[in-house]
């Protein structure tokens, strides 16, 4: 580790992994509720399980991004973090606020939670992914601002590199677009319209910048390829991302009451959204093939390449699958969306956080890379989780196509719940692969505790 203050990232990474485990557990609960409707009812109803599953995802990714930034920025800027103490304080504030929110979801009915937390002062709750009570939302803003202050001050006092600038742009964008979660007009069309400014412009806009810079950072470290080459690719990817992603928001505006031209704008621009992901795949493999050193941390390289491939498949290909308006007319809100959501979030964001953790964690624990044995376990966890996710996606895609056919396309369409019963086989298969995914995650956690002879060469 080049700078002492990078060590604050460790806390963030540990919390991220812990919350990731929670997310997967709630995913399994929900997955079972798809086929055994009253499982854990009334203790944990489906809507609560879903809320916890998706909220934990967002929170653990945010912990991962923040940890990644705390690790990356001092090294890129070649200076200590502006205030490591602030970083630690923010960690505890964010963790406690997050935990209280989840406890709130589980302990009291959602409507009661809304009453208790002053939703009547400013109504922001009750919308998918933005379910957090007002105090939590305000807390997120405060934490994000203080975090950005810390990171920005570090960059300002040190060296400014393309990677840290792209990361900053992404993180500032993340904070700014979150502000739209406070805007909740009573007009349902407008509500949805701006709701996507948080949701879409996060995952198909500014988060991609964070993804690109974290990936570029790890690739520079493990391949030793010239910074200039990687930076040029990063610029190409960032521009393509923003051009396609921003207007691509239109693919959410097809059927919500927005003007009709969005069907064209959304279709054309979002159809091009796979291009930056494809560029990222080409870029990652290119860099690794032209590597100038054999970094002892093979697991980190595997995660980096995995991110490049799986983000292209999950976000690029599975996104394209249902992005054109005439296709989306049938697939909207079916399991096809769920398939895309699972592989895209895992392939792009979960994996890039696991990549930076895989690279940084051994260094923060005082070694260039983990022992061979530990890396083998980690690689097993990589393959188990990734292959499981591929199958979860395939089963959900099959379920989705069948659902579209039974419910919306055949000459004798059947109601939603009847269609759900018809496709339950695929839900069972998905639940099975979900258990395998959990096994992979457990192995991943185990890999941190596997000892063996450490590698110390190269850094």
């Amino acid at each position, binding site marked *: 580790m080049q700078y002492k203050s990078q060590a604050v990232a460790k806390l963030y990474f540990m919390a991220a992994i812990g919350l990731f485990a929670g997310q997967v557990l709630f995913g399994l609960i929900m997955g079972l509720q798809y086929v055994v409707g009253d499982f854990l009812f009334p203790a944990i109803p489906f809507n609560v399980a879903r809320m916890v599953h998706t909220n934990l995802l967002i929170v653990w990714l945010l912990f991962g991004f923040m940890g990644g930034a705390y690790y990356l920025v001092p090294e890129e800027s070649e200076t200590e973090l502006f205030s490591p103490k602030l970083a630690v304080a923010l960690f505890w504030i964010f963790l406690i606020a997050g935990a209280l929110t989840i406890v709130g979801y589980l302990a009291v009915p959602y409507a009661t939670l809304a009453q208790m937390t002053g939703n009547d002062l400013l109504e922001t709750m009750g919308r998918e992914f933005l379910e957090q009570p007002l105090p939590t939302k305000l807390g997120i803003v405060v934490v994000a601002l203080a975090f950005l202050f810390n990171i920005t001050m570090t960059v300002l006092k040190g060296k400014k590199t393309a990677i840290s600038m792209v990361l900053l742009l992404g993180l500032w964008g993340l904070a700014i677009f979150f502000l739209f979660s406070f805007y909740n007009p009573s007009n349902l069309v407008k509500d949805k319209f701006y709701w996507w400014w948080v949701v879409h412009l996060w995952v198909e806009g500014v988060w991609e910048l964070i993804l690109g810079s974290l990936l570029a950072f790890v690739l520079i470290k493990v391949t030793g390829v010239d910074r200039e080459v990687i930076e*040029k690719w990063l610029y*190409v990817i960032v521009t393509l991302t923003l051009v396609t992603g921003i207007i691509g928001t239109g693919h959410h505006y097809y059927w919500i009451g927005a*003007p*009709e031209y969005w069907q064209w704008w959304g279709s*054309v621009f979002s159809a*091009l959204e796979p*291009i930056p992901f494809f560029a990222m795949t080409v870029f990652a493999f290119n860099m690794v093939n032209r590597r100038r050193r054999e970094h002892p941390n093979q697991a980190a390289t595997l995660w980096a390449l995995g991110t490049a491939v799986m983000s292209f498949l999950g976000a690029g290909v599975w996104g394209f699958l249902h992005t054109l308006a005439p296709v989306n007319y049938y697939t909207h809100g079916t399991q096809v969306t769920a398939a895309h959501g699972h592989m895209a979030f895992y392939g792009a964001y979960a994996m890039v956080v696991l990549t930076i953790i895989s690279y940084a964690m051994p260094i923060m624990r005082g070694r260039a890379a983990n022992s061979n044995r530990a890396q083998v376990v980690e690689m097993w966890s990589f393959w188990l989780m990734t292959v499981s996710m591929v199958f979860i996606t395939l089963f959900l895609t099959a379920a989705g196509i069948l659902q579209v056919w039974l419910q919306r396309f055949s000459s004798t369409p059947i109601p939603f719940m009847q269609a759900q019963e018809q496709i339950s086989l695929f839900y069972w298969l998905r639940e099975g692969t979900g258990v395998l995914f959990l096994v992979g995650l457990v192995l991943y956690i185990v890999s941190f505790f596997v000892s063996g002879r450490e590698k110390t060469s190269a850094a």
Partner: protein
Amino acid sequence: MNPGAQNPDPMTVPPTSAYPPGDLAVWVFIFAELLAFGVFFLAYAFTRMRHVELFDAMQGTLDRRAGAVNTVLLITSSFCVARAVRAAEHGASRIGTRWVLAALACGAGFLLVKGAEYADKFGAGISLSTNTFYMFYLSLTFFHFMHVILGMVVLAVLAVQTRRGDYHRGNMNGLESGAAYWHMVDLVWIVLFPLVYVLR
């Protein structure tokens, strides 16, 4: 693998004799841009097939002379940019700068003519929601309009750099890249004009 070996940058093509001219990165952009316009053109073509009467009638309401003037302006500007590259390559930075400025002037002329067309249409209350033809007309031309503006920003930077004598044989990368981008802006219009204004 030899760790001491210099890793050649694949995205920086050596100058002069190399092909394509300019930076490979800019060609990636150009490809992506052409793809975006290409998809939009195809969508236009297929939609026209289904609404031939509407499209024919609406095309009649466009100002073809303005479109033709703009076509001449952009082709001329491309010529100017090509001359600028040639001049800079031969060490004539001052002449090169003048050619870039001439291209900029043509670009400005394009914006004026197009602006007048827009003012006329918007004045008549036409919007993206008027009908399918105007949705395409406004989307395509406005998307292109923004590219002309971006291209002009690039040309302005190139003019300053050329004037400073940054470009000469052996270092043409930036100027060639900018020129290639400007040609793309021109090329898109050369397809767009007949497709949207003329063909019926």
